[in-house]
């Protein structure tokens, strides 16, 4: 459980950080909180030549709440989201999801950008990014680009980030007043990775569900958006029949993995149950 040897750099600017990443052609990794990366290094699942620490970079730890949405800098830590009183109104779904991230000590170090770039299919932040159609700001040797969350996640622990690119910020679309939402996940112990989880929100138009967004974690090789389930619910009243139809559509639209934590059929049943509960909870 000792890490393989690597070089370490702690640049002062993002340009320097990008240049350092580019200098090792794919054998350099970014470290910030290190709460996902250091375990990977400890297990020697990753053995980069160089770690580029974002510690000294300025301006990546802002939480901005504006009319065009909520922006979180890549270095924003989970504990900062938890403590931010304005976020509770500006994005209650985000705050509730982040309450489920790991444990107290890890929430003091782990960052938004780290979780997104690590891209664990069961992680909460990628799930929220997918559910809410977030945009990701990325800087690399070729300049800046913006990626949609739906294009960013490529598979388990795999993203669109090039070896010389750094994720700098995530932007969540504005949260409408009166919006209904729920976030539920199930893990064997508090703070563990979810076996399955669901995030959803919608608006009410004339007593019917409008523009529902449903995301699922832990049931695929990446966080999933359940478009087929959304299609079943949009324009309908949220009643028992609608919930039953949604659960059926969810069961048919996922193909979860089997591993030591749970077989595929268990995950499918769990997600269906969580979805039904989340829909009921959102209506209260």
């Amino acid at each position, binding site marked *: 459980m*000792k890490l393989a040897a690597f*070089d370490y750099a702690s640049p002062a600017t993002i340009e320097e950080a990008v240049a350092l990443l580019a200098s090792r052609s794919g054998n350099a990794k970014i470290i910030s909180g290190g709460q996902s990366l250091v375990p990977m290094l400890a297990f020697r699942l990753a053995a980069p030549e160089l770690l580029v620490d974002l510690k000294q970079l300025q301006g990546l730890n802002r939480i901005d709440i504006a009319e065009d949405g909520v922006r979180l800098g890549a270095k924003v830590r989970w504990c900062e989201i938890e403590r931010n009183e304005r976020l509770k109104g500006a994005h209650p779904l985000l705050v509730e999801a982040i309450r489920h991230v790991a444990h107290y000590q890890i929430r003091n170090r782990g960052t938004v950008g780290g979780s997104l770039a690590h891209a664990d299919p069961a992680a909460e932040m990628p799930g929220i990014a997918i559910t809410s159609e977030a945009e990701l700001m990325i800087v690399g040797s070729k300049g800046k680009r913006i990626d949609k969350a739906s294009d960013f996640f490529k598979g388990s622990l795999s993203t669109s980030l090039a070896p010389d690119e750094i994720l700098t910020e995530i932007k969540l679309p504005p949260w409408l007043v009166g919006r209904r939402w729920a976030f539920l996940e199930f893990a064997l112990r508090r703070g563990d990775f979810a076996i399955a989880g669901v995030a959803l929100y919608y608006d009410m138009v004339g007593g019917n569900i409008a523009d529902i967004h449903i995301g699922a974690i832990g049931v695929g090789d990446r966080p999933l958006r359940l478009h087929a389930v959304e299609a079943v619910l949009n324009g309908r009243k949220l009643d028992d029949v609608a919930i039953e139809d949604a659960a059926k559509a969810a069961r048919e639209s996922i193909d979860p993995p089997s591993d030591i934590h749970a077989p595929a059929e268990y995950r499918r049943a769990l997600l269906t149950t969580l979805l039904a509960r989340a829909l009921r909870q959102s209506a209260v």
Partner: protein
Amino acid sequence: MKVNFELNGKRVETDVEPRMTLADCIRDHLRQTGTHLACEHGVCGACTVLVNGEAVRSCLILAVQAQDERVLTVEGLSREEALTPLQSAFRKHHALQCGFCTPGFITTAHALLTEEPEADEDRIREVLSGNLCRCTGYLPIIEAVLEARSAYTHKDDK
């Protein structure tokens, strides 16, 4: 690489490989062995220390990342003359048996109560869920932390 930080109120400097974790640095280089290492991958909480007042897992921080930071270990939370209120409460409630996990519980509980001296039982349970103990069954630990709260409310402990 040279790394220089504050450990339990004293400035320390040592030469480490970048791959050395803060936990190994504290134990093997600086010989403060109160911080215990069990899982070494961020699951058990035994190695919890405070960095700038916040509880963190020292096995998931590189020693070089502690440059210029303020690190407090379980050694920094004890007094020569007597047990601290938190230590006394652990003793009174039999909140340890083998004691291996105890430094992690003490540092975590200290960080929590310093910031939230009014933490209720649910909050204490939530926070301590990041620490594993194979002896006590946890209930005595929760009782001890609940009892130690009053000392933090009165601010007579640091």
